[in-house]
């Protein structure tokens, strides 16, 4: 059975290409720490291109604006980029939500 606490945290990856003007969001990956996230981002999202800049950010650290359609009935965490509860640190005492 999947245990959220056993998963490596999720990181969002932003890459600015050599000729690029700004960092673009490429996708995500799982890594245990920022160092590993950077290395993996390099391998997966840039295929080792030179001169690129990579940012990695824990997914849970990103705060997003609310979508135009406010889902009052369904979205408890509409200011987060994802719906998935395991991105957010839920204290063990609370148990599975």
């Amino acid at each position: 059975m999947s245990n959220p606490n056993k998963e490596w945290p999720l990181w969002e990856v932003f890459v600015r290409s050599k000729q690029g003007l700004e960092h673009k969001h490429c996708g995500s990956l799982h890594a245990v720490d920022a160092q590993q996230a950077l290395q993996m981002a390099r391998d997966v999202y840039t295929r080792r291109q030179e001169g690129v800049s990579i940012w990695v950010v824990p997914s849970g650290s990103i705060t997003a604006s609310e979508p135009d359609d406010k889902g009052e009935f369904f979205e408890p965490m509409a200011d987060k980029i994802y719906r998935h509860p395991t991105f957010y640190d839920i204290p063990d005492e609370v148990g599975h939500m």
Partner: protein
Amino acid sequence: MNNLAPPEATASTDYLLHLADNALVLGQRNAEWCGNGPVLEEDIALANMSLDLVGQARLLYQHAAALTGHGATEDSLAYFRDAGDFRNFTLLELPHASPSAERDYAVTITRNFLYSALMLLVWDALQDSKDPQLAAIAAKSLKEVRYHFRHSRDWLLRLGDGTAESHARTQSALDQLMPYTREFWEASEVGRNAVSRGLATDPATLRAHWDGLLDAALLEAGLQRPAAGGAPPPGKNGRHSEHLAPLLADMQVLARAHPAAQW
């Protein structure tokens, strides 16, 4: 064809084959993790490193083939030499096996660390080789080995200083593999030859630096440096373990079955 430098300023093919065989054999071993890695991201990292190593092997074999002449190619050197003619370090031909597992990630990482720490220094020194083509290959390979070194060092730390199980496996891997590093420093005729022609650095001059890299990493990882001991056969002189022949048999079987074919 190397028309740019006079014949004296090109590395002996034996030395090039040693470097090439190292890269190919380790590339071959690391590729065994394709589709079998402990996590998808590591599958990708290992495939990436394998690809770098095969790329290095290709450049080195191509250079050696051009020097050899007589129709030699990168593939004739890789696929049509027997185990006794290979000049890779024995360390690199060992399977990933340990007492714990048929394929043990601790063995993979520890081996990659020991080798990439060496190559970090060797490629750096070879940038000054009097063989301009070898110097160019060294510059490219140095960039790659920096990543390999960082990857394996980071993982050595995670495994050495992770759980009790990972620590035990990594210490065991280190104990198992350390004796094979002895041949890094042992003088050989090929090595002496290359040094005297200004093509390569005497590895003995790199040893203290390598020790420093190793000791620093082991300290952070909470691992003990094994006592020196054992005298495994030195693959760089063509004396290998039992593992090289089956590795090559698998690698070469198809090419040898169709010797006249182009692929």
